[in-house]
């Protein structure tokens, strides 16, 4: 556990907040869009979990994470820090999971923060009256869980790609193409599924099934990444 925390600590210091002004601009842009601009535009629909709210809360973090995760191994390789890290006592599992946890906790943390800020913005925008909350609350929680699973999906896939990429740029290009391919597959699969499968299911139940599928995909990608983590392979890449 302490190894995991060590890698998370290192990732936060080295990759997420290394001290330049640009590193503070990125979360600011994220929170401004997801926590201020979009809720202000959508108003009550935002609190009623409109399509725009669900879409933004799931896909915004997904694409944001792609910005960071490609750097996880490929960046260390480029900066010549990977070899020394691999020569230390820290376990394979701690290195890999630590990088995933650091990135997911950062982006998902910002998503939750933006969601709470959106609540404040909508209430301020609607003027005097009793404060409204996300309705239903369970739906809001489900959207946050979906956001987290989307982060984990991007992070698991991203770490797998980063493991096998020589440079961050290569990793990011692969991730972008991979994401486009994934969405095309999801779109056509959803259209191809027999409609009777969903007959009698409420939108909430369909959403839960989608969450379950995403969780399974996350676990699968993370498992593949862990299985393909070989120090010798990383060293010789």
């Amino acid at each position: 556990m302490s190894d995991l925390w060590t890698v998370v600590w290192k990732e936060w210091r080295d990759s997420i907040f290394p001290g330049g002004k640009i590193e503070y601009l990125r979360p600011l842009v994220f929170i401004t869009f997801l926590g201020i601009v979009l809720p202000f535009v959508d108003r009550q629909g935002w609190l009623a979990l409109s399509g725009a709210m669900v879409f933004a809360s799931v896909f915004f973090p997904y694409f944001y994470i792609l910005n960071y995760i490609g750097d996880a191994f490929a960046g260390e390789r480029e900066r010549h820090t990977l070899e020394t890290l691999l020569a230390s006592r820290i376990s394979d599992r701690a290195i890999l999971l630590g990088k995933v946890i650091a990135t997911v906790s950062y982006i998902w943390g910002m998503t939750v923060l933006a969601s709470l800020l959106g609540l404040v913005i909508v209430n301020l925008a609607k003027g005097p009256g009793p404060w409204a909350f996300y309705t239903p609350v369970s739906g809001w929680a489900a959207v946050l869980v979906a956001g987290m699973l989307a982060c984990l999906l991007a992070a698991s896939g991203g770490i797998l790609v980063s493991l096998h990429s020589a440079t961050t740029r290569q990793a990011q290009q692969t991730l972008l193409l991979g994401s486009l391919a994934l969405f095309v597959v999801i779109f056509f699969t959803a259209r191809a599924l027999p409609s009777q499968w969903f007959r009698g299911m409420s939108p909430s139940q369909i959403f839960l099934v989608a969450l379950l599928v995403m969780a399974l995909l996350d676990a699968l990608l993370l498992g593949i990444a862990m299985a393909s983590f070989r120090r010798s392979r990383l060293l010789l890449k």
Partner: protein
Amino acid sequence: MPEPIIRTEHLSRTFGEVKAVDDLSLAVPAGIVFGFLGPNGAGKTTTIHLLLGLLEPTLGQAWVLGFDTRTQAGEIRAHCGALLEFSGLYERMTAEDNLDLYGRIYQMSSLDRKSRIKELLTHLDLWERRKEQVNKWSRGMKQKLAVARAIFHRPPLIFLDEPTAGFDPVAAAALRADLAALVAREGVTVFLNTHNLTEAEKLCAQVGVIRNGKLLMVGSPDELRTRKGSSHVEITGQGFTGQILASLRARPEVAGIEQQDGRLLIELRGEARTAPLVSLIVQSGAEVEEARRGESSLEDVFLTLMKENKNE
């Protein structure tokens, strides 16, 4: 006899058709600086990777601190420090954070980490700049910090892969001095990869010479000089005629003669004495102003070994 800290038996590693390490059998005693000498591409870095368990050997076996590199690589890495080909510093982090990270990795307590950071950075004259991001530092400073990181958790054995490569002579000498002082103070065993022969001569109690993955010779620099080197005498003067040169060549203790700018360079066999040769020259009518005897340097030995290996 104490167990060597590093032992390899017929250790080999191939990459496709290339034999990076070829049948390496070696024993490194504890408490010394062991220099692993070889030209670029000789297999030095691959050997360190094999010893740290970062690469699997194709054949053979190795033990580091008694741990098998194939099955106990984690234990080896937990008990060793390493400064590999690159400094491996996180340049966007401060010097203090770089050391703190490795203290955390090696599970040192917060108090121990703090005191160790102060101790090492003070020793290396870097304490005042501990809060700076490393990317603002000179290469020499970074390398000193990387050495500090390698010994931070007080390992009994550290691997250094060409720590002064690419440095100017002044910076290299300064780093060497720091390295020697730290090693002496910490009592750590060092496996030092280098192609810098001055470095090996100054720091190493034992050296191994490797070329094309093959270990050519192991011993102390003095032993190597005795086994592969030779003595020579340089005579300055005038009147060194062809007849004198022929007489000298006929002497059994003379291995070779070269004449350069009024100087005679006589290569001697074994522990031959100089005085009879000087007498012969003077009696033959030449004038001798100075006769100076010298021993082969480690560089001479190294070059001889490289030449021999190339001819094989």
